[in-house]
């Protein structure tokens, strides 16, 4: 863990007005929804939006701007850079989700409503697992394209997976629907905890699958960055 890299990433994100407005809008909407409906847990998909807003372009922006040149000539290994970008993205987003959960909890307590602590804890865990997984996916995509192109790739990939899945369902071609599902599940690695976990054994396979997706994305990102060359030189 390199606190210098992580700290600089946090500050860069905080200094972006667009990201801050979007993040506040998502969190504000979740809190308002909970306040009005009394729902103790926000929509799980809001973790996806938050990760996209706070984690988009984590590597690609450094590559596009050329700032990565000055980082990589320092004693920072490329793998270290990738892993610290991932850590920075998921720690930032997780922190926001935890604060959001705490505010919702306080609102429920203040309103005198019953608070299902176990449900809140499971939902929070589920959201953090989504954030950790999606951060790894975004880091991989960001190693491939410059700027915020990772977010665009994610959206295109997710839409493509959903459309394939829909076509598969509509035409009753299970294999096609499965391909679509696999694409979307790869893009948003998640673990269903709120549906009830029967046993640890039942959780082992999805947990291994989730862990495999995360590890694969990070390994691919490191591989891409290790093979990448950085130069301002004209190559004719």
């Amino acid at each position, binding site marked *: 863990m390199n606190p210098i890299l992580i700290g600089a990433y946090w500050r860069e994100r905080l200094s972006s007005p667009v990201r801050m407005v979007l993040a506040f809008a998502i969190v504000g909407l979740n809190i308002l929804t909970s306040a009005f409906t009394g729902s103790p847990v926000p929509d799980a998909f809001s973790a996806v939006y938050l990760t996209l807003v706070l984690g988009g372009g984590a590597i690609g922006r450094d590559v596009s701007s050329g700032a990565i040149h000055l*980082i990589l000539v320092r004693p920072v290994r490329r793998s270290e850079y990738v892993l610290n970008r991932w850590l920075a993205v998921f720690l930032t987003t997780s922190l926001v989700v935890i604060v959001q959960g705490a505010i919702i909890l306080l609102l429920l307590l203040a309103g005198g409503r019953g608070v299902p602590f176990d449900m809140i804890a499971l939902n929070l865990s589920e959201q953090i697992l989504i954030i950790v997984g999606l951060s790894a996916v975004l880091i991989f995509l960001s190693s491939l394209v410059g700027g915020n192109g990772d977010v665009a790739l994610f959206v295109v990939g997710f839409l493509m997976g959903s459309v394939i899945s829909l076509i598969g369902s509509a035409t009753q071609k299970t294999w096609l629907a499965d391909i679509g599902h696999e694409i979307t599940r790869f893009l948003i690695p998640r673990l269903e905890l709120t549906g009830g976990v029967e046993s640890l054994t039942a959780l082992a396979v999805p947990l291994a699958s989730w862990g495999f997706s995360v590890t694969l994305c990070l390994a691919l990102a490191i591989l891409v960055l290790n093979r990448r060359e950085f130069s301002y030189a004209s190559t004719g």
Partner: protein
Amino acid sequence: MAGIEVQNLTKTFRGGMVKALDGVSLAVAPGEVCGVIGPNGAGKTTLMGCLLGLLSPTSGDLRIDGLSPDDMAVRTVTGYLPERLTLDRWMTGRDFLEYHHGLARLPAIERRGAAASALDQVGLANGAGDKSIRTYSRGMLQRLGLAQALIGRPRYVYLDEPTSGMDPSGVVLFRKLIRDEAARGATILLNSHQLEQVERLCDRVVFVRGGRVESIATVDAGATMVRVLRIRLARSAEALQTEPLPLTPVDGVQLVNQDGAEIQFAVADDAAAARLLRYLVERNYPVIEAVPDEGRLERLFTGHEPGAPA
């Protein structure tokens, strides 16, 4: 030997279609200031990219202190100022230097002091360091970039067009900093199109063209440079009703040649040239042009000196 050693370095792009470096061999001794000059597309920046580990050589060998450029021990003692400087514009100048001090894995306890000292070194100490980088002018950015390259007193400093966009005072400051760095023993590789600057600062100059080292010249940095100033008059000096020109009209100036309306003087420095012009104008010489003759590197570069690259 320690220092920078490059042997038969070749770098191609686009699957070998573009050969940016073609068998470059070069040795830069520790503490040497080495200039790299050549036309655009000669391979200067590619050479620097390979030395910094940003590019992988296609073939050949690169050693810095006997180690690969990718070695973390090498990176710890490396400073780099790129040609196209992109800084993290959301930081202040001070934050930026502290950030790079941290990335260089230098002791945290020295961070604030090192950043303050670096800002002072490049003339950004008067509050400029606490302003957001996005408010900086081109020259200030270049100064900050230079401070970043020099923070932590690296043993190897790579500078790619370091004075691009700098005002004259910045250029003077830059020269002083490079001389100071050389005096403390830093090995400096300087890519520049400004031949006069290279001539003033470097111990040796490498001419690169078409991805090859065409020649390596010793330029004896710091030696007093005598330049030739050509003065053109509206009429020939003989036709003027003025006293004949003395051999040494003012301090630091010597008459070299007089041919009709054109007179050549050897001048020690810019101040001597200014004194000469004042002298001539005060004595009613109708000066219509004063052109500095090209320097030695320029003559070498353009092929007008024996031993120059073809």
